[in-house]
């Protein structure tokens, strides 16, 4: 089983595949065997019990991530209203100290609809692609997207409501995002309108913050209400084509969340908090085919799993950085 192909399969909406015997490396097989000894199982149970007794929610990464989202979006607002010209434009396209930046998905929609691509847009798109390739692709979602932040806060509320039975948690098929991705791409090309852009909650929220165009926030509000009462992380998890565009970029990114099988207790705290838990399927007991694995394409690098993991089995890693330093 090729882990890269598997991560793309999952990104398109397929259920994670159970690895076959031949997929395991010798080292991983030995580790799983070792973990399965009665002493080790007892030891793990003891450690989990102890850890759950002293459980405390960690904000180790969120205390950086939330301010980052706010800071980036505030840069846009400040640049416009105080005319400091650091980041002009909106999240769909901007100029950062004079350099063109263009959101990959907006750029794609415009290019499909307009069927031309000016050099400025090519430069802006390439710059953004390289930038987000470096830092992890869907890290755009977790570290920049203003809708993601709203949705995250609503999710915290949703979890509490669901505990009390006031909110449902319906599941959807994740393949719906792939279908929407294709449908919106085809619609842009065929109709010649950027159909997705008018309902994109990311563009809407970004422009509402910067230009005060608030009517679109009604739609964003509807989405948040759906997420609050019916479907947890409805938009980010199941719908958003922007997330998929950045997931493509992230699939080959050097910046990843890294999994260490030897440290893992397999209790599943990480999967509970994850926006895209299918990428963490390998943390289930017996699933990791290698002792060290980089988490797949769909991962937003939000670090919620890193915060939730009591043993440090999940960490950030930048491939090649250790060799560079």
């Amino acid at each position, binding site marked *: 089983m090729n882990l890269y192909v598997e991560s793309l399969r999952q990104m398109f909406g397929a259920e994670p595949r159970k690895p076959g015997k031949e997929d395991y490396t010798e080292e991983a097989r030995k580790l799983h065997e070792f973990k399965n000894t009665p002493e080790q199982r007892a030891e793990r149970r003891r450690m989990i019990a102890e850890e759950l007794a002293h459980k405390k929610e960690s904000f180790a990464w969120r205390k950086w991530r939330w301010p980052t989202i706010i800071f980036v979006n505030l840069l846009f607002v400040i640049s416009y209203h105080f005319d400091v010209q650091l980041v002009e434009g909106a999240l769909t396209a901007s*100029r950062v100290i004079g350099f063109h930046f263009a959101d990959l998905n907006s750029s794609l929609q415009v290019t499909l609809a307009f069927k*031309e691509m000016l050099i400025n847009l090519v430069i802006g798109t390439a710059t953004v692609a390289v930038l987000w390739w470096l830092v992890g692709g869907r890290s755009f979602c977790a570290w920049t997207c203003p809708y993601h932040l709203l949705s995250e806060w609503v999710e915290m509320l949703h979890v509490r409501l669901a505990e009390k039975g006031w909110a449902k948690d319906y599941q959807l098929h994740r393949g719906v995002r792939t*279908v929407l991705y294709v449908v919106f791409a085809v619609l842009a090309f065929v109709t010649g309108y*950027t*159909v997705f*852009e008018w*309902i994109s909650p990311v563009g809407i929220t970004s422009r509402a913050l910067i230009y005060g165009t608030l009517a679109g926030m009604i*739609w964003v509000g509807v989405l948040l209400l759906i997420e609050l009462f019916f479907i947890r992380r409805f938009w980010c998890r199941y*719908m958003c084509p922007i997330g998929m565009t950045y997931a493509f970029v992230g699939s080959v990114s050097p910046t990843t969340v890294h999994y260490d099988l030897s440290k893992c207790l397999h209790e599943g705290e990480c999967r509970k908090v994850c926006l895209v838990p299918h990428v963490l399927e390998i943390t289930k007991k017996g699933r990791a085919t290698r002792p060290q694995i980089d988490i797949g394409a769909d991962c937003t690098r939000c670090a919620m799993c890193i915060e939730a993991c009591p043993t440090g089995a999940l960490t950030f890693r930048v491939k090649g950085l250790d060799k560079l330093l």
Partner: protein
Amino acid sequence: MSDEANKGNAPAKKPKKRMSRRERERRRALVLSILTGGAVVGLGLAGYYPVMTYARAEDRLRPPGAIEEKEFLAACIKCGQCVQVCPVEAIVLADFEDGFGNGVPHIIARDQACDFSCDAVQCILACPTGALTHEIDKKEQVRMGLAVLTRPDTCLARQGLGFKGTARGDDFPGLHRYIEVDRWNPIRIADHPYDLELCDLCVRECPIKDAIRLEPMSDDPNDKRKTPVVTDKCVGCGMCEMICPVDPPSIEIIPRKKYGEA
């Protein structure tokens, strides 16, 4: 359910029941996915309605250099960089109600016209996608629409009347660059009162040379009445519409209209 009752059921039945529950959940997930996904696509397509009805090409005055309306909506990446560079903040972004035009810039000339205070066409230079075409670089080349005397009866000049005071009242926030006052910075129109024997504001403040002039309405030298005449030089910037002291304005921009077109 007690354990014993569970045992009573044949063990073969148990996995079958679990399968059917999973199956039910899967089916519900699938149906919900189709419904919600369909709703999102449906809403997406609903963006057609505004651009076909109340937000058509002739309803929105687009910024200088805007290419043909449908292509303009396609090419515009909805970022508002044109909004940000405009010194008089003439350009505003449409909101959700514009459908496919959501986030696309336009100008409400009566509130704040484009008066080319920027001297170049900054909005065109700012546009990253060419929705505002980079093929033009002078204000004289712009064709946003055409000024039309839509209410000739109310025009002060046509009645031989003068004008005294602030063109749009003392509270009007609109800006205009009066070169004789400040070469570089636009000031409030409310801070620039007039005292005119015959109202010629549309001609006086037009930023384009020879785009509009006043012509006598008769050969009688005692007849003070004059009428504004728009020429093929008009770029449709809307300055005349903004400055017109009559309310509603006697002269207006018809977006996308070309000179000589009916």
